């Protein structure tokens, strides 16, 4: 699984992207582990036990808002993107 970081999330993770060798059944499990690995990131990922409203997570290009949110199941070859909410035009 590949995890990519963007915007002001990138400096919190200290890295652009990383291969994630461990299996995670769903997004919640992955984000919990990411938060442990990158302490600065932890508070940006969660609001309580829910996904933070200040981030956008894509799994294979699809916002998890339109999948199963934090319960979205993951496969070993998935690409997970972590974005801050952002705008422009």
């Amino acid at each position, binding site marked *: 699984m590949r995890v990519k970081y*963007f915007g002001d999330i990138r400096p919190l993770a200290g890295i652009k992207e990383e291969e994630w060798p461990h299996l995670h059944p769903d997004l919640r499990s992955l984000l919990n582990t990411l938060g442990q690995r990158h302490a600065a990131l932890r508070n940006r990922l969660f609001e309580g036990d829910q996904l933070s409203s200040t981030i956008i997570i894509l799994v294979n290009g699809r*916002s998890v808002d339109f999948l199963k949110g934090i319960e979205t199941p993951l496969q070993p070859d998935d690409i997970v993107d972590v974005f801050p909410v952002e705008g422009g035009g």
Partner: protein
Amino acid sequence: MNGWIGRILRIDLTTGAVTKQPLLENDAVLFLGARGLATKIFTDEVPASVDPLSPENKLIFAPGPFTGTLAPSAGRYHVVAKSPLTNTIAGANSGGVFGAAVKYAGYDAIVFEGKAERPVYVWIKDGRVEIRDASHLWGKWVPDTTDLVRGETDDDASVACIGPAGEKLVLFASIQNEMHRAAGRGGVGAVMGSKNLKAIAVRGTGGVRVADVKALEAAVWAARAKLAAHPVAQGLNKHGTDILVNILNETGCLPTRNYNDGHFPTADKVGGESLTKEVLTRKKGCFACVISCGRVTRVKDPKFAGEGEGPEYEAAWGYGPDCGVDNLDAATKANHLCNELGLDSISAPATIACAIDLAESGVLPAKDFDGLDFRWGNAELVVELTKRIALREGIGDKLALGSYRFAEMYGHPEYSMTVKKQEIPAYDARGIQGIGLEYATCNRGGCHVKGYTIAAEVLASDNVRLDPREIKGKPALAKAFQDMTAAVDASGGCIFGTFGMVADDYAAMLSALTGVRYSAADYVKAGERIWNLERVFNLKAGFTAKDDTLPERVLKSPIKTGPSKGLVSRLPEMLPEYYSARGWTDQGVPSPEKLRELQLA
């Protein structure tokens, strides 16, 4: 009047006559100002059949009621004319401080008519208006023009001008104010050039009367706090609009190589994160803005060295992935050139992308390459072509007509990624259904910003989130964004304000400012009124429902790689519901009942 100055300035460039007229209160109340007021004046006075580059076309600059006040991120002005690129009504919007200067000089709108016999510029110092010779400025680039005009008038004057592109009637020439801010789309710079009007310098020392100061302050501080605290506003400050490159690419909806694909593997090199690290020197805001998304940039690479502002997302995409280029220095340099020469930084690179596509496909013969190496990914090429277009040199003379007319010359208009002959921007409508409906129906031709459904489809809007791949709910979404944006434009606001503020916030500020009571519904209704007035003009100009469409490639050729592989736009399924939501006939004509409801008939 409160909020409005109550005066319109009219300058006949043919006769040199300058007149000042009262603003009709009913027009102000119904059409607000800026885009709305200018469209009302324009459509009342100019026949839809007018030749856009003839003296009979008019060119109207108008700030809105908020412009020049402390309303947050709301200091903008609008330029209205008939577009030489699209033949629709043109409405180009810009920030900076020019709009506020016009207001402080004492005007709700400046209407230019006719054509000067030789190049002129206009110097407005409050009530004094002079038409001055500009022969010595003709041919000058935007920065020199701005400096020279300030030197001859007032160091504190705000200057809006055209560059060589506007003088030479490039059909997508911009009008630039404060050098780097652009009323960019639709070729309003060419209309200004056709009138031999090189620049407008404005210095205003007046103010804006407020109906209820305490109520305005309360409404402004409440709205301002919401906007300033919003994560999107903060994100725009951090990385500028170019932050969008990566999210669109990861979604698989970053148009690549003239819409041949929707995914560009090295897009990150031209994204906002890279821009911040490599070329940003400081951030900059427009009048009364709490966001400051503007980027002051410097390129050190000797090949592309220079200083200026931008690129915004659209230009970084256009000069980047849309041309197969991943060189941020080149994209930044090309964007600087657009500002210096006075070109729309969306249509310019998208026209170049079309030319490269024609060359790579064997349609554009090598004998027409003008000595250049036409291929995807050639960073030097996109910079050089930008200059040749603005100066109408070599192949640039033909590219100056935009991608549609250029591709048509070679018998293949389907290579042009345009709607109503204006280049569509940086969101692939094959994977984001709502924005395709906006492109197809926008009154100024292919455009994202007048109905930015991306906010709800991709960017996690607070209020509504709709799956970008679905068509359900998109007609109503497009209409809602279009109407709200028209109201925001007309009141002098920046659409980025809507990331943190809603119609209630705008209505509260407008009511306190003007003393005219607007509910949120009244405010949005004004936007709907403006949208319909623009539509009626376009229908009179000969457009029909057949023109509300997308390039064949977007409708029929699926995205080839990336997460949105296999998708196409489903526009035909959405259009009937859109017309119905608008109260239009199935041919896209506003019904008599709708026009009466909007007080347009």
